């Protein structure tokens, strides 16, 4: 695609792009809308049965009139059972698109998973969400995986009472259970989410609750069916620190209670350090570094991770001047063919002009995509 540097497209070119887009998205939409497909088609195998989720070389693109936005461009990571994986990165790096891909909640038809695998472990079966159809994923969503959003009001319906909304989720996944049992379970869930006056809240409308209380309701809904995987996309970003502390505490305790896994998305390194067992660092739609929380915080390897940590002041550590990463993120429509971080990197080497660096293992769990570690790989 020919792009002028100024980023403006002629009307003719824009029309051509949208025609091309339509061809691709129509085909993918048809796949997704198929009905009554035997389930076997979506079943797959895990690399490691101890994982709740395995993502392999996932590519999620948005086919816009400005061109194809490669929001997620080849990422692979695991979420082990019972563990919390934190995903960090600055806004626009593709964190939300990753989670929406896993839930199959992308804005269709322009948002599409174009390739890769998303393997969800439901206990006895493993589904490939990337290839699944709408009918099947509906049965998994809420039951085996659920999501908590930053702004609970976007996912709570303002005109229905809290209790009815929780009841609905339970009824969907446990059809035939009598209503009084469902209702009792709802009250129990609200209680579990730390809502003191659960019976009162059952009859309230979302707008009658504070932000922190709404997020508790969202957590109650997300945990209603004891899912295997909980995706929390910036669950506390809109909340105050003392309320954030309550919510994080709650998430941690409930996760252990039902033995599920959490994929926690945030831009706050402090929250990650506190909650996560494993950390994934994203930059411009790719994973630049991943490892255990100890590895990432004690020995950050990628220049972007190092820069990110140096740009945030830390309470109790006095410094004169904060480090600031120079430059800005590359244009997502027109990505470079070398390391995406090279133009901002202050540690770059001559060889960084080559193609995008591949993932290097610097320990069994610690992986980094950076030319500075190419020698280390050979040494090991």
């Amino acid at each position, binding site marked *: 695609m020919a792009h002028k540097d100024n980023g403006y497209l002629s009307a003719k070119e824009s029309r051509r792009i949208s025609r091309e887009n339509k061809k691709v998205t129509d085909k993918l939409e048809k796949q997704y809308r198929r009905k009554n497909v035997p389930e076997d088609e979506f079943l797959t195998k895990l690399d490691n049965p101890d994982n709740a989720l395995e993502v392999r070389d996932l590519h999620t693109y948005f086919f816009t009139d400005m061109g194809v936005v490669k929001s997620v461009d080849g990422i692979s990571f695991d979420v082990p059972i019972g563990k919390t994986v934190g995903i960090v990165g600055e806004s626009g790096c593709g964190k939300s698109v990753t989670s929406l891909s896993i839930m199959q909640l992308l804005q269709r038809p322009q948002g599409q998973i174009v390739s890769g695998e998303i393997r969800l472990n439901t206990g006895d079966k493993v589904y490939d969400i990337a290839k699944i159809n709408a009918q099947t994923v509906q049965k998994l969503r809420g039951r085996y995986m659920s999501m908590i959003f930053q702004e609970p009001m976007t996912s709570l319906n303002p005109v229905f009472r809290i209790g009815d909304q929780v009841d609905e989720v339970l009824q969907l996944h446990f059809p035939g259970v009598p209503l009084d049992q469902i209702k009792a379970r709802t009250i129990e869930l609200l209680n579990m989410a730390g809502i003191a006056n659960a019976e009162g809240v059952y009859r309230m409308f979302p707008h009658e609750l504070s932000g922190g209380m709404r997020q508790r309701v969202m957590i109650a809904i997300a945990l209603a069916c004891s899912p295997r995987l909980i995706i929390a996309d910036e669950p506390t970003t809109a909340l105050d620190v003392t309320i954030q502390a309550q919510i994080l505490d709650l998430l941690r305790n409930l996760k252990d209670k039902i033995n599920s896994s959490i994929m926690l998305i945030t831009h706050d390194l402090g929250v990650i350090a506190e909650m996560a067992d494993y950390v994934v660092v994203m930059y411009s739609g790719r994973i630049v570094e991943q490892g255990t929380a100890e590895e990432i915080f004690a020995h950050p390897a990628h220049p972007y991770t190092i820069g990110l940590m140096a740009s945030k002041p830390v309470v*109790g550590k006095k410094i004169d001047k904060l480090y600031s990463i120079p430059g800005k993120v590359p244009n997502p429509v027109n990505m470079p063919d070398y390391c995406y971080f090279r133009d901002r990197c202050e540690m770059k080497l001559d060889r960084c002009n080559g193609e995008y660096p591949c993932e290097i293992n610097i320990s069994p769990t610690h992986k980094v995509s950076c030319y500075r570690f190419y020698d280390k790989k050979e040494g090991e």
Partner: protein
Amino acid sequence: MADEIKNAAEEEETTVATETAVADPVAEESVQEAPAAAAETPAQGEVVMSEEERKAAEKAEKQRQKEELKRLKEEARAKALYVDKSYDPVEYDPQYILMVNNLKKYFPIKDGVFARTVGYVRAVDGVTFNLKRGTTMGLVGESGCGKTTTGRVILRLSGEKTAGQVLFNGEEVYDKTPAEMRALRTKMQIVFQDPFSSLSPRLPVGEIIGEAVREHKLVPKEEYNDYIDDIMDKCGLQPFHKYRYPHEFSGGQRQRICIARALALNPEFVVCDEPVSALDVSIQAQIINLLKELQEHFKLTYLFISHDLSVVEHISDSVGVMYLGNLVEYGTTEEIFSNPLHPYTKALFSAIPVPDPTVKMNRIILEGSIPSPANPPEGCKFHTRCPYATEECKHVAPCQREIEPGHYVVCHLYNK
């Protein structure tokens, strides 16, 4: 910009004037009294009064009642302004550019079609601190605790204050005439949190930054262009950016434009209201560094409002902690962070996540949520969530005490 602020201020002032309708308790009392008085009069004059005389007397009585009601309404109106003089005025101390003494700002709550005042939001409810020239004071607290209102009331951007003093260079800001106020506006500026909505989309950046400079004739005409270029350069903007429009800039650059606009007026004091909260971490670092450089260069004094404690610790010389309209603790940054005293400050600090997985925080989790500032708890406002609350705390409001030199706390635990 200055104009915008002035207009906003005027607008709010007019609303203040209209909103002082009736303070209801008093008005209602008068209505209750009236029938009793009316019943008395005929009883007295029963024997002698002719029909006409009685009518005249009734009329006079009605007139009297009407006037009485009017007087009471007026009294109520005066009370509705809620001017509270119950504070000791402070003496000016030249080392302080800003002295804030028992500052209060209540917003009336309106109800029904007649917009009667049914109560007050006590957004700022007694804030006292002094700010040394050339330093930065951080103001922290959770959302709704009154940080923004404090900043705006100091700059006289929220109509009249409810009570207290704001001395800027020793002069009461609220005693200024409109003309004096306009001149003062160049000395006191504000940078807002949201760099997206605080810039006019229809003006090119050069005009946004320079508009008020020309209006106040701060520099001679022939130097104007160089002056603007210089300010933009200091704020990290390129000269050609002058001809672009705000929507063409990223969040960080827009915040630079806001800062340049404020600094173009050559202020002494700048209120920074969450200037980095909407920005990404790496952009935050750039803006924080810029604010620090500019402070050194222009000898600025900042009131830095933020809910991010690590940023506040980094940039501030002193820190104030607010809870529900009160400044519960304030002192030097070292003191506050190494030796927090107020139970709320302790809980707030313990809630900050530390970016180090090996550190296990000894977290104090506060129960419940923040009460409404329209109906704050009696006594110490924090007592409903305080782990140390005593019977005294529930009924008696604590006052500000200096525990160490320069370290002030408002809490009964330290009232010895």
